[in-house]
């Protein structure tokens, strides 16, 4: 068991510090980086010019912006945006789990259905989906619940009529907000399915075996062992998805959803010929909400890394 670095002389030669050699701290002239100072000065100059422009260019019209940024319809728009973000993410995550489990199930029908779903909803732009769902009422005037192919079945028995139990007017159900929410949720489900599938596949196979050996059923293994461990991998991209979703709620304006934040800000801007201040207000609102969501993500990530909390041996959440 001798290490390959050991000198041929053998182990009897023990290294001892030489008393004659200096052990004083090193004093040397550090390398200077003048080009860094030049670059920093240049950037500071640009920043100063930008700030100067913010204060002197009348197009910003700051008093008007702040006067309208917190007006009642805009604040309501913020809540609509926030609720649409959280709801569509919640539905998207549930859909994503179902689709990911279907994709990994090994049943050819479930696998293909999941694949087709992902293919469609990832392939069509969200803007197109939003408009499409806003116009879905053209396809169905009413939405009815009953036995599938009922008219054929009744005809086969020589009867007239149908087997429908209740119906809803599609224009009521698929009104702006619901239609837009549906479009965003279904689209998100496709992306979440891929994220969750990657998370589930990242969990070591030995975990499943150990859980099975303890007598856990497949559903229990998924719910108690695989899924919680997949969360560590799933949460950071899900945070990104949530922030992307927040921004995509602006697409609701095209469904159209008139109570939504961006729609309201644009409307105020157009009516008062103050388009630019309201666009700046939109930037500020989205930045504020994004920052709040990022704080939320930090705490959720900590929650799903319990061992790191107790050890505190790593920088948590620094990378995102």
């Amino acid at each position, binding site marked *: 068991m001798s290490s390959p670095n050991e000198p041929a002389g053998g182990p009897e030669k023990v290294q001892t510090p030489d008393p004659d050699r200096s052990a004083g701290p090193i004093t040397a002239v550090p390398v200077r980086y003048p080009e860094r100072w030049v670059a920093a000065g240049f950037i500071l100059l640009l920043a100063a010019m930008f700030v100067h422009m913010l204060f002197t260019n009348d197009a910003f019209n700051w008093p008007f912006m702040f006067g309208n940024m917190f007006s009642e319809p805009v604040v309501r728009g913020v809540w609509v945006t926030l609720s649409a973000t959280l709801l569509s993410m919640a539905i998207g995550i549930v859909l994503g789990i179902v689709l990911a489990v279907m994709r990994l199930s090994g049943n050819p029908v479930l696998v293909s259905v999941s694949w087709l779903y992902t293919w469609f909803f990832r392939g069509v732009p969200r803007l197109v989906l939003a408009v499409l769902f806003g116009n879905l009422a053209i396809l169905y005037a009413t939405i009815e619940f009953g036995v599938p192919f009922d008219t054929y079945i009744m005809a086969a028995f020589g009867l007239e009529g149908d087997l429908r139990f209740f119906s809803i007017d599609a224009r009521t159900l698929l009104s702006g907000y619901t239609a837009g929410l549906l479009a965003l949720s279904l689209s998100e489900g496709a992306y979440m399915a891929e994220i969750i599938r990657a998370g589930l596949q990242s969990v*070591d196979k*030995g*975990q499943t*075996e*150990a*859980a*099975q*050996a*303890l*007598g*856990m*059923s*497949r559903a*229990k293994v998924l719910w*108690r*062992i695989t899924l*919680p*461990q997949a969360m*560590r991998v799933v949460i950071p991209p899900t945070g990104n998805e949530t922030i992307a979703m927040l921004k995509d709620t602006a697409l609701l304006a095209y469904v159209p959803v008139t109570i939504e934040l961006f729609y309201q800000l644009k409307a105020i801007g157009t009516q008062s010929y103050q388009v630019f201040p309201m666009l700046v207000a939109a930037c500020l609102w989205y930045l504020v909400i994004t920052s709040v969501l990022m704080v939320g993500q930090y705490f959720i990530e900590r929650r*799903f890394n*319990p*061992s790191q909390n*107790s*050890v505190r041996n790593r920088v948590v959440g620094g990378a995102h």
Partner: protein
Amino acid sequence: MAEISENPVPPGDADALVVADNVHKRFGRLEVLRGIDLTVKRGEVMCVIGPSGSGKSTFLRCINHLEKLSAGRLWVNGELMGYRQKGGRLYELRDHEIAAQRRDIGMVFQRFNLFPHLSVLGNVIEAPVQVKRVPRAQATEKAMELLEKVGLPDKADAYPEQLSGGQQQRVAIARALAMEPSLMLFDEPTSALDPELVGEVLDVMRDLAEGGMTMVVVTHEMGFAREVGDSLVFMDEGVVVESGDPRDVLTDPGHERTQAFLSKVL
């Protein structure tokens, strides 16, 4: 559908806990097990040795049906593993039925496979609480007893990644014991450990054997096999080459292949 051997003998010996009858296992064209006949009696400690690729781990995984047999039959505690026999035909068991059969069989893996998202205590009570529906308080009490038994009572709140390999493996043993199994399977439990940590795991296993637990141990620890094992099985190329009392087999192997293997490892 698996090919099943022609004689549907139920295990005759009342003392037998595991009965393997002509067990075959194929992975594609590779035949890993080529007809294993074995009986493990209640309270017996059987050690299985052999070169890597001899099929010993695969056989162990067939016992709790982590691997499906390609042919042959295997009974544990008088129950046919993985199938139900009715009117001369075999029916595959459902997922929850196989899970129920596995509850009685504890397994310890080479790479520990502790659940990293749960604390040591969480690992040990997970299956009793989730599978057997034991009340949490009662499961915790039992878990603390087991952690005491494996010498880790003060690690209950630690997480697996904070433990050494030897400590992790001892937790894994406690986790398996928490289900109160009648049979324990060990798949090279010390092979992934640093040499100085092997002893602490073997000590726990020795205690378990002295307590009367039925154990099947796939191992490279010949010392353990000699001192603790009641029987020794030497496997090579998917068959049992030789079996018998460990002291006899290890000191005076009757088969050429056994001699060749032992000359390399002893």
